[in-house]
């Protein structure tokens, strides 16, 4: 089994859950939210809590698409080789995603686990397909290997950002199946 895998024993990175808003630092002295991390107080009167949530929801101001949101779209994609997500393998990370909502631009850099990884193009393709499917078409998306992390960096980058070649790849039934397999973990958490 080992022989088939290009990197059979990769480093697993700790995935950090988003540090939520510190519940203790509420400025309203009347707030009792801190007591209900598991919504115990809300349980006592769920209708009230619901109505409140709905009211705040409707008042939410417009939120621009940011790196955080993109990272959430990408982090649960499976690695083609391992039953591990790209976040666990640190292939994608928040710091390497830049988004400009106004200019309609997004750049994603990814880091292959090892410099000679032949799966890099496939991973890049998965990222690209995911973004084509889930970002508004007004965005110009740039998916690239992070500088100095792969031996054939230039070749891969060229392949990934060539519209024709991406389109051709997506015509390939087998390839799209593999991509679909990797993406299946990204939805419906």
């Amino acid at each position, binding site marked *: 089994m080992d022989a088939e895998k290009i990197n059979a024993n990769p*480093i*697993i*990175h700790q995935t950090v859950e988003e540090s939520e808003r510190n519940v*203790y*630092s509420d400025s309203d002295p009347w707030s009792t939210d*801190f*007591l209900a991390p598991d919504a115990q107080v809300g349980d006592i009167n769920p209708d009230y809590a619901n109505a409140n949530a709905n009211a705040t929801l409707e008042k939410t101001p417009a*939120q621009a698409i940011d790196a955080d949101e993109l990272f959430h779209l990408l982090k649960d994609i499976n690695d083609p080789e391992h039953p591990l997500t790209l976040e666990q393998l640190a292939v994608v990370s928040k710091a390497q995603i830049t988004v400009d909502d106004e200019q309609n631009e997004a750049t994603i850099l990814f880091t292959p686990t090892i410099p000679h990884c032949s799966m890099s193009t496939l991973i890049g393709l998965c990222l690209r397909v995911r973004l084509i499917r889930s*970002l508004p078409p007004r965005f110009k998306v740039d998916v690239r290997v992070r500088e100095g992390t792969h031996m054939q960096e230039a070749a891969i980058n060229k392949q990934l950002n060539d519209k024709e070649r991406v389109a051709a790849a997506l015509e390939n039934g087998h390839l799209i199946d593999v991509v679909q397999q990797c993406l299946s973990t990204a*939805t419906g958490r």
Partner: protein
Amino acid sequence: MLIFGMNTVILIEFDTMSHSESLFDVIFCYFPITFKPPPDDPYGISTDDLRFALRQNICSSPHFAQQAIPLLIDKLTATSGPVKRDTLLTITHALPVYGFGHVSQKSRSLWDAISIEILYSTDTHTENVALDSLQSLITTLYPDTHPTELLNATELPGIANLIFDVCHDAIKQPEKSKSTPAIKILATLIQSSPATLARPLTHSTLIPLLELFAVPADPTQPPPILNHIHAILVALSKVYADQGRSFLHDNPINPSLKEQLNNTLTSTINNKPLRSPALAAFTQTLHIHGYWDFNVDGVQIANILIDFVKDPNQDPHVRLVAIEGLLCLGQDILHNIVLPSLLTSIPTSVDSSTDWKPIRAILASITALAVDGALFEDFVLGVEAKMNQVSGDSLNLAYVNILLSTLLVIIEEKAAKKHQDISQYTCSILSKLFVFFVIAHPGSVNETRLVETASRLIQAIVRSFDVSQQQILARHVMNALINGYWQGLLGTEDDIIHQPPLSTNSTHRAFFPLLASALIPIKREVNLPLASESVSELQSLSEFATTLTRWSMQSASTPTQQIASQHLLANLTNKRIESLSEYTTHLLGEWPERTSAESSANSIFLIIIQWIAKGALCRNHALGVEFVTKLLDLITSHSVYADRVAGVIGAIADDSNDGVLDRKRSNGVSSLLHKQRFFDVIFPVVVERYESAASRSEDTTSAKYLATLAHLIQHMPKSLALAKLPQIFPILLIALSLNDAALRSSVIETITVLILTEETIAHTVQQHMSSLITSLLSFSTDSERSSVRLRVSALKLLGVFPRVIRKDILEQFKLQIVRQLVVALDDPIKLVRKEAVDAREFWLQV
């Protein structure tokens, strides 16, 4: 099935030594079972039934061992998915039966086969089953006998030595992906045979890990090392969590390792980046019974952990683990050290310069720590002391509010755990609470947020009282409410008389919500004393209810007071309708006048009716249906309140009642299937009225009936809704055309729930697919006009279709949906975008 059953009996009851070969042939030819039950199978035999029966056969005679083990190993490597798991389960059950002799001969190949599933696992389910098989293998091979003195696992006899070798290699690089399954294997071994394996394996695993931790070869190593140490300690703590097995007798960790481990962990706890895994590992040592002597070290450990619990800037996970650790230390240390320290750290009163963060962190910790017996009493006394000392300004009232909220959370927790001692400790705080509001800080009663919390707390306390305690309390409360005599409730000797809250234009009407909340949980068998000591003219419960109704319709009543009186009236109707006949006659008499003109008093009346109807419905009383029929008549008679009918009837059908009609929360009367009966009666009536209005093309009237139907369907019991689906589904679809965003979203949510619970609905949905999809798409892509909730619910429902609808139907719509949802991908709200991405992805996968 029958034959498998018979086989088991034969194999267990008779000596089958001489026939084992032929029996093996007839039984094992069925293995593994890949049978799939045909649709509409009249016998209802499932694959798992067969698997289980065959497994029983295979495991019923040790004579199979010689032939069976190679066969099982063979099948294990050849199969996948559920069949592989079946094989592993069979191995798990068979090995102990086949016995040490046969198993030890094949141990090497068994381990090879099983280990692949763990070391190269593809899904956690199979991995866990494989770990169970490994446990069975080890338990068979290493019967738990005398504890060993061995420290070095490389000197272990048999297969364990080999296993350790494999794992030892893997954990040399603790940050790599293979180390995790290796540690799982070692932990399983320790749990399987603690006497023989725990000591050598623990030492041979932990010592190199600790050495590597001290001098890491790579900066990424320390956190995974701590996680691995944690996993080993978890295995040990599972074995030695209670006195069942003696830690001291098995002695799996010798003093020098213990010292090394404690030093590493306690010093790492102070290192912020590594605190979380180090503390988790440390807490596991507290779980191991016998590892620590709490009489000696308990106080010191408590002091380390308390600091984490108090610190509001601490990672919430760290705080939870620290609390878990504190709870291991036992009642004495919590009572003597921990709680006093926490209670003194929260201030006696607050001012504008107070930092609220530590107070909140400490109170949140207390909700987890002060649940049991004496500890709860400590906290109750602490709260009482603080309440005595605060001043009455707004900030301090907010402080009292969070103290009382904390107390409420703990009481709810105790009630959930069925503790019987709530009333024992809370009796005193009830009168303290009233003293606070009535005497110490009379102004505080106008602070609705505090009154709301206090009311809920009072309800929770009175709920825990028994009949005799409630009887006394009821008398005191009534005395205060009707006569203004407070001394009973306040527990004082002197007479304390104010204006009765319930009298017209009373200066004390703001006290009503507090008093009402004490009455709501009173049990039916408790007599509400009205006439006994009363100086007022109220002679019966009916008169009391009538007075209360008038009182709450007065222009002086605030929303809080109105809600409290609605709750109390619904609760009284529910429990004591027998003694309220005059009151209900009064309400029915007032009805025509109250619904003829719009005024604030009349609106309050309508809501009171809504609550009375709820209370009556819960116990299947005809009054509920009578009021609902009267409400429907308002639509026909074009009353000024016709537009409100749909909402009110929906609220009546709604199960939620703020707990005031609940059997557990307020000792309400709730008869079985009362909702079904209500719908059986009301639903056809509304449908009929709707249809006749529609046929006469009275558009406004039929729209109101339609809205009523839509409100009713949302609260319909699921089983009933499913039975009536062909009838209600078209109604739901038409209701989507009503221009009411909230109603639309609830209708969509109802459809979603129905589809997800019962897939047969899909058939009905398919017939309406095209119109449904058109409306859903227009809702979800119109960020200008539809509300956020409507967009989210429409997208959710769209995302559900690919799971439940036939593929050929889906394909007709795929292109349309995938194209149009692009618009929703660019929604201004993040939550909507997320749902759009998911829905679109599901459709793309069609």
